[in-house]
């Protein structure tokens, strides 16, 4: 394990993060955006766990925060889906570009 440093994990998580951002930008389907969010969160989590593994002072804290992030992500997904269902009830679509009521 020692020969596999922290950097590869960080790079992978950066990649996932970028993919998540791209999802935000490119998906018009609300649920697609939600998936992007999940990607971003997972990227963050990879960082946490990798640091927990490779930084001696974070052995516990890294995992703890990863757990917290997972739980919060689940909660966020639930609420987000509820919101989307609501959105769907009102707009008969989940295309976020339709939801422009807040347009200035």
């Amino acid at each position, binding site marked *: 394990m020692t020969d596999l440093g922290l950097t590869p994990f960080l790079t992978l998580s950066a990649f996932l993060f970028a993919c998540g*951002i791209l999802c*935000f*930008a*490119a*998906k*018009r389907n609300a649920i697609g*955006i939600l998936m992007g969010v999940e990607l971003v969160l997972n990227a963050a989590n990879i960082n946490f766990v990798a640091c927990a593994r490779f930084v001696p002072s974070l052995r516990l804290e890294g995992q703890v925060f990863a757990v917290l992030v997972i739980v919060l992500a689940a909660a966020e997904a639930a609420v987000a889906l509820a919101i989307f269902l609501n959105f769907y009830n009102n707009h008969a679509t989940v295309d*976020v*570009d339709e*939801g*422009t*009521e*807040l*347009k*200035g």
Partner: protein
Amino acid sequence: MLDLFRDSPGRLFVAATLLPLVPVVLLVLSGTARNLARPHGRSGGWASSIYWLLGGDHSLKTGGYLTLAAMLGSAVLAVAGLTQYFADAHDPGLSPAQIEARWTERTDWVRIGADRTDHPATALQLGYRIDRLTALLFTMVTVVGSLIFLFSLGYMADEASDQVTDHEVHTDGGHLHRRGRFGRFFLYLGLFAFSMLNLLIADNLFQVFVGWELVGVCSFFLIGFYTERPSASAAANKAFIVNRIGDAGFLIGIAIAFSVFGTLNIQELIARTPADGSTPTGISENLWLAMGLGLFLGCVGKSAQFPLHTWLPDAMEGPTPVSALIHAATMVAAGVYLVGRCFPLFAPDVLLVIAYVGAITLFLAATIATVQNDIKRVLAYSTVSQLGYMMLALGVGGWTAGLFHLLTHAFFKALLFLGAGSVILGLHHEQDLSRMGGLRRKMPVTAYTMLVGVLAISGVPFLSGWYSKDMILADALGFGAAHPRHVLLTVLPILTAGLTAFYMFRLWFLAFAGQPRDRHAYDRAHESPWAMTLPLVVLAAFSLAAGWGWPVWDATASYLGHLLHDGEPAAVAARFGSELAAAHEHHLLAGGLGLLMAAIGLAFAAFMYVARDPTIALEADTPLITLLRHKWYFDEAYDAAFVRPTVALAAAAAATDKRPTASVTDDTEGRRIDPGTLDGALTAVGQLSARLGAWLRTLQTGLVRQYVLVLALTVVVLLGMLTALTRNN
């Protein structure tokens, strides 16, 4: 409970001070609670019931009784404190320092500059200090005050109904009908009493100032008690504003004292000043003068001295007991009391000013009083004149005389006013002397008790007024003898002694003697209820005997006078030793002159209003009388000098702020000035921000993904900056 008072009996006076406040606080708190509870549909429970009991919105008499009870209680406490004080004072076992310690307490209230390092922290303090003057005056105020309260119970009785008709106010539907304000009246009275007492026991100028302002605002409430009457509200405003002028001076004085000496405690200030009245170290001559003059200006305003005397007669608009309270016990006494209390703080020149102001005042007021037909106004001017006497006395070094006169005057002036009130009530709110006459048959008690007061004020021997006025005249004479340049200070008071006798007897003759000039009013006249006559009798007794000592025929032997004399500050003897000595030897001469003048005045009055048909004198119209009727045209002068310019200025200011009228076509004078300048600028700002907002709105596309993109862009930029920075070092 008792040991609370044992070590520091001065707390008796504190308790007596706070007692009249109790009903007020109760009423205010319960009313507040009630109003807080009301919007939620709840009745407010106990709060509203207390409120109701105190006569908050119903005109129940309970509030009045409660306040009276409180006042009586404080009177009792005051008497107890007085006796205790003199027991201490005559206790050989107690050194003055111990007495001082027993009767003085103070605590820091607001610390100022505690963080400053360059000078020690100073503090606004709360505290009390009881000395002879305070104790005596305090007792006087509480006693007279409770008598007046009792009187008001009778006088304001018709306020205690839900439907009061005010005959002075004419609305389109006949007279004004309003709810009675019995409870409110006594609320004000209680507050008034509290403020005055607080002012009396205060040991520092700041607390005095607080009481000062409270007294002012209470007088405002009470003078304007009949709010619906324009004259009443105008008088209230006048009193308030004129007092503000004086208070401004007072504040300046306080500010100087605080900034120079770092303390406002009167005793400390006195300790700093040399006994001979020369300027203390650490303060420039002019500043010292300014401080003295400022303090005195405050007293001028409160005790209605010469330049600012115009408000007092107008204050007659208030209910008569209020006039009695203001004139006799509380408000106007404050000024004289303060001058007495701070006597050592006044430089000799300031004292001279005081003396002259007093002299001018007493003469002016007396002259005006001779021609007034409104019974209360006559009394009002007499008050001003008597206050002038006191000021004069203080100015010429007659510390004892002035304050002695303050005490005695309190009694007989209260008596006179209450008598006047009883007359007015008996005549169903008829105040015009020219329509009275012969009332002694209808209301004997009032008549003869008032006669006592008249005799007392005009200095007839063996009545309280005699002793004090005699002393004042003596001091004035002595001063005149010592300083021939200031002979005016001797002449005016002696002349005025005659004037006083004249107008007071004129009043009594017009009111009670002779034949009734208004048969209708006369028939409806009746004697007042016991609640009003009892105070009259008691006060008559006081004004008869307050000054007595043994032997009674010796004007200098007054016991009260001696009590006061022992409390005289050292500075008096140190500064005015020679004058007082001179006064002592001229005493007999002064008394004789005073009596002579009084006799002349009495005779003249008797000739004009008893021997001759009073109407001739009443209708007489010579330039001099016109001048006097117009009170030397003071009001007109002030009106022209101050009021009109102020009003004009205000109008101009208002004109600049006129709103531009809706239609552009018509052209009010406001539109030319304003939209270009003030509103123009503001409107420009508003429109600018509105446009900015309208532009910013367009950024709000409502497209989530754009927001995300912007967000990501921000992150990228920030991260890039961060990286660049970390790279560099």
